[in-house]
């Protein structure tokens, strides 16, 4: 493979350089029916699962067909998307904020051919390329993060866990039979790249062992004071230790850190600052399940998700315990919630004591908050409870 230059000259990096031009202006990319009616929409209707119709003051209509994706997308599949958009949508397409694709057409008769085309496409392994759904009172795509595909701090894989859960709950993606929208999110470590902290259900990668300390490397790779400062619980202190030089066999004293294991809650912040403190561990790592959060201001304020399962191990490749747990939660919700009730509304209405009963999840001491002052406000400060 020969290096082919773009025209960039490494010796004169500033030559011809274009910077700070930002993204393309979005109006360049709006389909005509959208451009013409921008800011003049009257109302919308979900004409069937996955298909939205928006009506404009002008009388124009736009039909959007929403399809799921795995988010990971090779350019081969991407080009297939573009082909479909060229064929049906005059060369326009959009992605939603939850990694779904929307194909938009400007009249109803274009919907069926588009749908037929989309559903006809499957991967070699048998899965749909473009399942239609994700609208209304149902389940949409799981927003997620890198996992073992790209990040350095994950406690689990993102794409795999998401695939498993979406398979388990697939029928809900293409239907709208839930009490309200159900938003599931996934993040592969406590950094929570996404809105996992306020999702109806959240799957979260989680370490359970304090960092291993690579004493040989701490002083080479890290600014020790920064690593110490990074720990939210002050579990880390600078220290010295004696190590054996691998090459010479000599003992030498090195600067390093010591960790008070019982103060560690495995957040990985120290690792972010110091590569010599890895957390990843087959037995330690796994998942936490959170639930009851939301983002919209509808009816009441946004809510944080709460931890409802303290640990699920990394049962690769198909995480059966995770799938089971999701199924239990979703089934109980669908069965018990009232129309318009988000997952958290339902749990709050029936009470968390009932939540654990009807979902069959176990309540353990891990679920009681003990992190800093605000923990106190999560304890039950009333005699109002259900037996």
């Amino acid at each position: 493979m020969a290096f082919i230059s773009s025209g960039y000259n490494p010796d004169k990096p500033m030559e011809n350089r274009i910077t700070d031009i930002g993204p393309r202006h979005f109006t360049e990319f709006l389909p005509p029916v959208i451009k013409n009616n921008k800011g003049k929409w009257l109302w919308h209707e979900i004409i069937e699962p996955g298909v939205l119709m928006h009506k404009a003051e002008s009388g124009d209509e736009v039909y959007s067909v929403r399809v799921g994706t795995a988010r990971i997308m090779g350019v081969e599949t991407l080009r297939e998307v573009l082909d479909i958009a060229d064929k049906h949508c005059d060369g326009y397409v959009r992605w939603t904020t939850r990694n779904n694709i929307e194909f938009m057409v400007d009249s109803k008769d274009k919907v069926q051919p588009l749908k037929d085309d989309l559903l006809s496409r499957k991967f070699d392994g048998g899965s749909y390329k473009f399942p239609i759904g994700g609208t209304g009172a149902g389940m949409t795509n799981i927003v997620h993060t890198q996992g073992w595909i790209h990040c350095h701090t994950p406690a689990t894989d993102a794409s795999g866990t998401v695939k498993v859960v979406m398979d388990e709950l697939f029928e809900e993606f293409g239907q709208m039979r839930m009490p309200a929208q159900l938003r599931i999110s996934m993040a592969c470590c406590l950094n929570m790249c996404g809105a996992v902290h306020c999702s109806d259900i959240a799957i979260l990668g989680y370490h359970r062992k304090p960092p291993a300390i690579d004493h040989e490397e701490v002083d080479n790779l890290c600014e020790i004071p920064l690593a110490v400062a990074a720990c939210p619980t002050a579990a880390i202190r600078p220290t010295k230790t004696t190590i054996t030089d691998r090459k010479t066999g000599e003992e030498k004293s090195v600067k390093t850190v010591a960790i008070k294991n019982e103060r560690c809650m495995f957040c990985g912040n120290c690792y972010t600052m110091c590569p010599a403190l890895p957390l990843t561990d087959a037995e330690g790592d796994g998942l936490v399940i959170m639930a009851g959060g939301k983002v919209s201001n509808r009816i009441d304020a946004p809510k944080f998700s709460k931890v409802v399962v303290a640990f699920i191990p990394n049962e690769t490749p198909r995480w059966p315990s995770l799938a089971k747990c999701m199924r239990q939660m979703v089934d109980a919700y669908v069965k018990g919630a009232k129309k318009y009730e988000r997952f958290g509304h339902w749990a709050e209405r029936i009470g968390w004591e009932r939540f654990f009963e009807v979902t069959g999840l176990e309540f353990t001491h891990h679920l009681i908050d003990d992190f800093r002052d605000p923990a106190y406000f999560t304890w039950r400060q009333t005699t109002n409870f259900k037996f």
Partner: protein
Amino acid sequence: MPKHETPLLDQLESGPWPSFVSDLKRQAESRTQKQNDIEYQIPVDVVDDLLGLLELSYVEKEVHWKHGGIVGVFGYGGGVIGRYCDQPQKFPGVAHFHTVRVNQPAGKFYKTDFLRQLADLWDFRGSGVTNMHGSTGDIILLGTTTPQLEEIFFELTHNMNQDLGGSGSNLRTPESCLGESRCEWSCYDAQELCYQLTMEYQDELHRPAFPYKFKFKFDGCPNGCVASIARSDLSFIGTWRDDIRIDQEAVAAYVGGEIQPNGGAHAGKDWGPFDIQKEVIDLCPTKCMWMEGGKLKINDRECTRCMHCLNVMPRALRIGNDRGLSILAGAKAPILDGAQMGSLLLPFVKGEEPYDAIKEVIENIWDWWMEEGKNRERLGETMKRQGFQKLLEVTGIPADPRHVEHPRFTPYIFWKEEEVPGGFERDIADYRSRHPK
């Protein structure tokens, strides 16, 4: 013929949901097939090795990417995430596997020609694997080598008129919901404001000068389709100040069952006939609605614009005419002290060009946070540490009950010396003249 056996990953090809494994295999295969046609600038087997490495993680249940790696393009402090594999001997194709963040257009509409160009570029100079999109909103180009970074940037800027997004301690790529372009509820042009602020703050986006990352997100209305209130240091959320517009005929049509409630969102299950009392009036959090002579009445003064009634009856109820947005500050993920939602800072501002009032808020906040924020301290944490009062002080926004869910519990008020007659210095001799020992 795949380069590596992936028996575990293979099990993720079955099931109906789009399989990322199948997608990656397809991509790997295509590279092998096309290797004679395309002069791939990074290893042909990059995706094969990605699958191999991932399989290893599935076996060992541990991650195999090394920590960080500082790479990027000249003059920018963001837009690229360096990544190296810890088994480069076994998986040389992913020895380097950096991602490039490309600043997506607001609302994520695309013309196919643009994306085709991007696909070609990425096929040629990268792994061909993307995330459409990253959690912040960028187009993520997943996996390339260090020498390709400047080339990619050059082609992006020169051939595609397209810049990188953010990473590091700078302004991150702003993101908006689709707003006015396809939503009847957008109270301001969320995409336009997103674009304008992105352009205004290009320098902050590309050149880290902040204590930590900083995010903007733009929701056209309180439904929050881009989740700004949960994950942006400044959230811009549309709202209105006047009355909800009511079409009484449409109300009657809903009541009569002629229009499906909530835009048909509940059509998959039989929830019984629509009951405006139960489904709208009783669920209104402020109880400011009622029926009178077959007409729906709203006491708009008491409405908090929660969107519920509009969501249920989009054809009958419309957002008001005096529109604008609220600004909330300080949302973030849980690291370090726990997650934060955005806190209401400016209840209302018009969302109109040249957006000066909005920029003033932003710049006042930045001036303060850049001065006072500690290393790796998000705005929300600085607010917590120095108090909401401080934020009001630096932005010049007057204290208002809307700033609080409820007034403080603890009477531990930090009075300032100038607020207390006589000041803080007291003469103990004077005290003792009244209070002998």
